């Protein structure tokens, strides 16, 4: 299962670096072309910051944000071709993560995944093979990176799949095939196979296949015997998700991710089969060990990677409803959720009231996400506070009328109507979320 020093020559790492770098470069260009720099960073009046990262803000003037995305694309491209790799990968990590941290409403699991992979690659010299650096390098004095580096990436991807599978152990997913039952029925227009999605059995089939896939695919990828089948499954599964759902780069990032599981000797055989001659290695030997500090660092990283996805299980009765610690836990495509929220500002001493419709202040994506996420509802109230305090002579109070529907259930009030959002802390908002079976009557 594990690559040995003799079978390892860095080709797999090189291929992963190239494909991942190119994908990230395309992703950044796509972000620019779709106008998302404006939509995400420049258009909104306020940004929903991540906790502890409130200091991360978009830069001004506006062109600087465009420049940063261009630089991110450029750095990713340099990573792909293996030129100035160390600088490029560090720049990629900081730029991508900075851009990701600005706006919580745009959180996506695969953005987080990309940040993690970039962070790991900062410590992995993946440019020893199939890079411009190795092409131009005359010296053979350096040692090749140890095989454990590839295993670090494999382990990270395995954790993503495994926790994504674990997250599917919800009654909605298992017993009701939700949200797939809803999503697939909306997709009856898909050519050729669309009619199948009217069948509820298909939703159950997809649900259980998805669950089995997430839980098992990493094991199949690690195992040499099952790897070819696993790779076919990866491609089939993710292409299907790309056809059915609007999930952007995610399927392609995971397909590329599976390539890291292919061992170097398998790559060599594959290239030989297609009569492709690889450039000769420019290293003299394969190193077997990692520096201790790096081992500790990787150890710490994976400890955190185990903790974060487990957090929601300790704090929630229903994580889909409350979403406490829902982010950074590989809760992928688990629910169909929508909400509606209107804010009321009261000045008790004068009796004045104002009503605030979020779409007067937020972008469509921000509003959509805020409507059903308690922490963002709280953040929006904090944003409104100084605006309306100026209009009032006395201290104001802010209340929300929020309703949320989850996986096709009838919508329910989400937070108490009489909860003054200015009197509680962000984390406390979760404690006030009304139960899913709550009724106003």
């Amino acid at each position, binding site marked *: 299962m594990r690559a040995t020093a003799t079978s390892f020559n860095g080709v797999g790492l090189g291929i992963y670096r190239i494909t991942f770098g190119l994908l990230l470069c395309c992703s950044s260009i796509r972000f620019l072309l779709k106008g998302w720099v404006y939509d995400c960073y420049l258009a909104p009046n306020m940004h929903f910051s991540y906790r502890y990262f409130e200091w991360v803000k978009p830069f001004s003037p506006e062109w600087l944000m465009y420049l940063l995305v261009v630089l991110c694309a450029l750095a990713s491209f340099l990573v792909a071709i293996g030129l100035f790799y160390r600088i490029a990968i560090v720049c990629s990590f900081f730029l991508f993560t900075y851009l990701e941290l600005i706006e919580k409403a745009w959180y996506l699991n695969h953005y987080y995944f990309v940040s993690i992979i970039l962070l790991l690659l900062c410590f992995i010299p993946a440019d020893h093979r199939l890079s411009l650096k190795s092409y131009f390098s005359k010296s053979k004095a350096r040692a090749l990176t140890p095989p454990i580096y590839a295993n670090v990436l494999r382990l990270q991807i395995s954790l993503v799949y495994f926790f994504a599978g674990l997250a599917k152990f919800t009654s909605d997913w298992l017993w009701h095939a939700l949200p797939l039952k809803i999503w697939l029925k909306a997709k009856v227009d898909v050519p050729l196979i669309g009619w199948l999605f009217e069948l509820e059995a298909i939703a159950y089939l997809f649900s*259980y296949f998805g669950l089995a896939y997430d839980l098992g695919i990493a094991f199949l990828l690690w195992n040499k015997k099952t790897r070819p089948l696993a790779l076919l499954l990866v491609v089939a599964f993710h292409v299907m998700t790309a056809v059915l759902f609007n999930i952007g780069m995610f399927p392609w990032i995971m397909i590329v991710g599976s390539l890291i599981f292919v061992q170097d000797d398998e790559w060599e055989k594959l290239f030989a089969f297609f009569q492709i001659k690889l450039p000769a290695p420019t290293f003299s030997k394969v190193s077997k060990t990692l520096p201790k500090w790096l081992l500790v660092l990787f150890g710490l990283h994976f400890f955190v990677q185990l903790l974060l996805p487990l957090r929601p299980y300790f704090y929630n009765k229903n994580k889909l409803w409350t979403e406490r610690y829902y982010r950074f836990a590989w809760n992928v495509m688990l629910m169909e959720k929508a909400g509606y929220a*209107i804010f009321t500002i009261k000045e008790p001493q004068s009796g004045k009231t104002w009503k605030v419709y979020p779409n007067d202040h937020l972008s469509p994506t921000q509003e959509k996400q805020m409507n059903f996420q308690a922490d963002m509802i709280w953040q929006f109230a904090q944003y409104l506070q100084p605006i309306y305090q100026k209009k009032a002579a006395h201290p104001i109070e802010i209340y929300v009328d929020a309703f949320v*529907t989850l996986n096709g259930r009838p919508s329910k009030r989400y937070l108490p109507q009489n909860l003054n959002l200015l009197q509680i802390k962000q984390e406390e908002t979760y404690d006030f979320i009304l139960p899913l079976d709550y009724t106003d009557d």
Partner: protein
Amino acid sequence: MPTKSIFLFFLLAIGMLACEDVAISEERLLEQRKLQLTNTLQAGILPAHQSFLSAAESLHQLSQTFRTTPTEDHLIAFRKQWKEAASSWKRCEFYDLGEISDSFIHFRIYRRPTNIEQLEETISNGELIDLDYVESQGSAVIGLAAIEYLLFEAVTDTSLQSFQADTKRADYLLALTAYLLDQAQALQESWGDYGPTFTNSLQSSIDGGQNLLVNAIVSALEETNKDAIGKPLGEASGGIAKLELLEAHRSSSSMSLIKATFREVKASFRGDYPNSESNYGFDDYLVALKNKELLDKIDTAIDKCEATLAELGGPDLKSTLATKPEAVAQLQLDFTALLLLVKIDMASFIGAIIVPNESDGD
């Protein structure tokens, strides 16, 4: 072993499919969507636009008569026809969908409020006031809102005198109605062209016909709640009522317009347009998706809105707002209840996209 497991999994799956008891041949969801969109176009959209075109023609005829003989009787008839046209327009305004919306033609027909200062300036600056002159103006000084301002700006006598004293004013009004008629014709032709595309937009993406209709209901209810009711109620002014913010307050037709909008919301949900053959609407689609519970809730909410509207009477909201603001607030609550059910419960259940995706999802 894993290969065998996967094979067994698929075998089981095929078994499940074979057991499924669904008559998919006759009740395909895609066909139901087609039925709904066809009904909406044939029984709802096209007749609405034909009716508005007729109203715009009558308006222009009365405008010509008034230009020739600006009498009080003609002014009264002209005003009455404006109310007819505005009410008729509300049916069309609901269908600001797809390519029609992209053309911004609705802005040219009715953009509120009209910019009074700019309008007066446009009239006084005009040397030759005709159709070309109006055509070259921005949407803030043309269309139904501008006509309303000119027709209803003051009590009858003063208004009549202003037309008699200032021919430019009468010329501008005539040109406005001529331009409105042009736009009504253009809009009807646009629907003739876009109609087949609309009924064939069976996809679930944001430009799918059903999605466009859900969003039309949501927009109509949101705008009514926020602009037509909320702002006059004083929601943006610390609770102090602002009667001048009522829609079409000069013509005292705010309530009529709210009612006209709601009638279209109801008709598009139930598909029960006059002369409709199939009456296919979202109600039938929800039945096809086996969610009678949600359908009953929406039906109840629609009935509640209708009852409250009937209680409030009409045609103007001004007096009710001044005397019974709580009754108006109740109407807003009823609209909100309906909005909630359509915007989040129904949209979520049928997989409709309310917000254009600015990003991917996972």
